[in-house]
């Protein structure tokens, strides 16, 4: 009987079983940012502790970074405080820091992979729930809270309960206009927003195997929205090709040895899973969320629930529909949007921007729509500019911004106003998530956001392309 990647990684990183029954798990790579670390560093200072492994720790700033002008000090005093605290903490504790003047700056989950810091077989932690993104490389990666950030800083370890593994096999060919984001939203819609609690998701099947690293990252990123703390794809040639030549990836002969080890970490053919789920790629369609959690979604050609469907949580549906300003049973296509946001750690990589730009080219966004394109990192931004993508977006009426989390959450100046409706390539559509307590979010793929921006309303991207 074989083992899954999760089991292999877990076993190699287990230091011991704690008296509490939890596993003491060594963390191979710790990513930190300005929001969830200040109090953790404070405790270290107070107790006279050092950062146990500064060599396994890397910091950047993303959540509170203004994307328009990065002039310091920031106008928002609290944001300025957070960034200066991180700068000081990194200096005092000897942690590497990619700040705003550094070409490596960007959203934590975009820069880790980009720099080759994220590698197969590692355990990875970060004080942000979308750390599951890094699982795309065959790493076991999960988000942690501030007290756990302190644990990892001081000891490079976590006290954690083991996870079960659910394999999700996606087989067949994705139809045109259907993207990794649609696969992720479909999984969450089918298994529920808490269906993954206690599990790590292993994404497998030929549709996943054909995906690029960017696409795999989009899928793994959304694992947490389905309740799974971690999600991963077994490392393969696509993974190795991506990593080769990255600044922190091994090079020369070490790279070959690394590949051999990485291969050995993939799940065995006869591995046993706690659960198995199959998804047929050919049946999928572009997905749009209509409600206030990422599981409340429907195909773009579908209708929002009437509330009379059997087994449906009537109260939750009614509440979501009234918050969103939708009539029961109305088609989702045609819902007017005020803002179009292309960005976030889910969909702000070069391939996402390319795909959105391809849709946008030759069009202009609807006059009432405010369009925002926010690359996930300085590197993505520069690469996009080299290809002229910024020009395409600008010509279409989008604003082209600097790297950061931006409108994914309301912690920086990019926010919805009032009850604006935002077509967004991000990952959360919770009430108030995008910075206005009454703001409304429709999650979809970057291509679908581009289509919505052009039409000024939710539109099937396949129609724009026609």
């Amino acid at each position: 009987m074989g083992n899954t990647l999760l089991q292999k990684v877990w076993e190699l990183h287990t230091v011991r079983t704690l008296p509490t029954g939890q596993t003491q798990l060594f963390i191979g790579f710790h990513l930190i940012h300005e929001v969830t670390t200040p109090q953790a560093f404070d405790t270290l200072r107070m107790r006279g502790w050092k950062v146990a492994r500064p060599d396994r720790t890397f910091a950047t700033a993303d959540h509170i970074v203004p994307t328009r002008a990065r002039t310091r000090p920031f106008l928002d005093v609290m944001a300025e405080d957070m960034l200066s605290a991180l700068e000081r903490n990194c200096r005092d504790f000897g942690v590497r820091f990619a700040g705003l003047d550094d070409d490596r700056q960007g959203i934590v989950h975009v820069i880790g992979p980009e720099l080759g810091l994220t590698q197969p077989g590692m355990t990875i932690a970060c004080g942000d729930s979308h750390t599951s993104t890094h699982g795309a490389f065959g790493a076991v990666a999960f988000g942690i809270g501030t007290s756990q950030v302190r644990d990892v800083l001081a000891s490079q370890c976590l006290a954690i309960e083991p996870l079960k593994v659910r394999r999700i096999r996606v087989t067949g060919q994705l139809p045109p206009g259907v993207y990794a984001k649609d696969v992720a939203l479909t999984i969450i819609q089918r298994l529920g927003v808490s269906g993954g609690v206690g599990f790590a998701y292993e994404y497998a099947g030929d549709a996943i195997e054909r995906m690029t690293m960017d696409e795999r990252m989009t899928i793994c990123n959304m694992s947490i929205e389905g309740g799974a703390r971690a999600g991963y794809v077994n490392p393969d040639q696509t993974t190795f090709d991506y990593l080769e030549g990255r600044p922190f990836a091994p090079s020369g002969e070490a790279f070959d040895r690394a590949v051999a080890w990485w291969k050995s970490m993939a799940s065995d053919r006869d591995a046993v899973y706690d659960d198995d789920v199959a998804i047929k790629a050919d049946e999928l369609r572009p997905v749009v969320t209509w409600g206030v959690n990422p599981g409340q979604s429907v195909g773009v050609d579908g209708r929002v629930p009437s509330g009379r469907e059997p087994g449906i949580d009537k109260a939750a549906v009614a509440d979501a529909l009234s918050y969103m300003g939708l009539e029961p049973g109305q088609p989702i296509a045609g819902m007017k949007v005020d803002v179009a946001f292309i960005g976030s750690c889910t969909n702000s990589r070069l391939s996402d921007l390319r795909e959105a730009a391809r849709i946008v080219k030759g069009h202009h966004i609807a006059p009432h729509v405010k369009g925002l394109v926010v690359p996930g990192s300085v590197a993505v931004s520069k690469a996009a500019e080299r290809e002229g993508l910024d020009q395409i977006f600008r010509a279409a009426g989008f604003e082209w911004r600097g790297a950061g989390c931006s409108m994914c959450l309301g912690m920086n100046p990019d926010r919805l106003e009032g009850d604006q409706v935002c077509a967004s390539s991000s990952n959360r559509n919770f009430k108030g998530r995008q910075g206005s307590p009454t703001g409304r979010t429709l999650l979809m793929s970057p291509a679908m956001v581009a289509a919505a921006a052009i039409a000024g309303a939710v539109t099937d991207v396949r129609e724009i392309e026609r």
Partner: protein
Amino acid sequence: MAEALRITRVEGRGLPMRGDDIDTDRIIPARFLRSVTFDGLEKYLFVDERAGSPAAVRAHGVHPFDDPHFQGASVLLVNSNFGCGSSREHAPQALQRWGIRAVVGESFSEIFFGNAAMIGLPCVKAAADDVRTLMDQVERTPQTAIHVDLTGNTVETEGFSCVVTLPSRVREALVTGAWDTTGLLLDRYGEVDKTAAALPYIRGF
């Protein structure tokens, strides 16, 4: 390393903070919660009733935390229901950062008690009469050394001794150094190094 986290006894001078129901809003007012750091929080301990506010001084006299006699104290003496009000961890944090290493009182609010235990600040219960005796003694002779013994469940000063209580679960955590996970994880750090050293990517492949 968890050796250093074991808290079996606290010795030091006392600081009497008289009054029942001292709430966390008095200990650390809400406007100091926005900060990104607990650092420097001790400056705002009881800030609204301390020197700097002439009205406060007129109303309360010299505040115990300003009284030169009690500077450098590490055992806080309180009456009943200390730390009631909001759940802010900032309250025990501020006390600990000021230098308080143990609190002896008639009773504590449950949340304050839990937050304090989480950061290794023992709060032990003593009978009302014993607390009064301790407070009187410290006010008469501020340099009195107070010994709080968590294993023996006693508080002792020159010529006085009383029994104190602490739930066994909390005592266990404090005396073994397991009161927070970080302590637990740092215990036997040698094993962490061993696990790390065996990983190909740490060895450099």
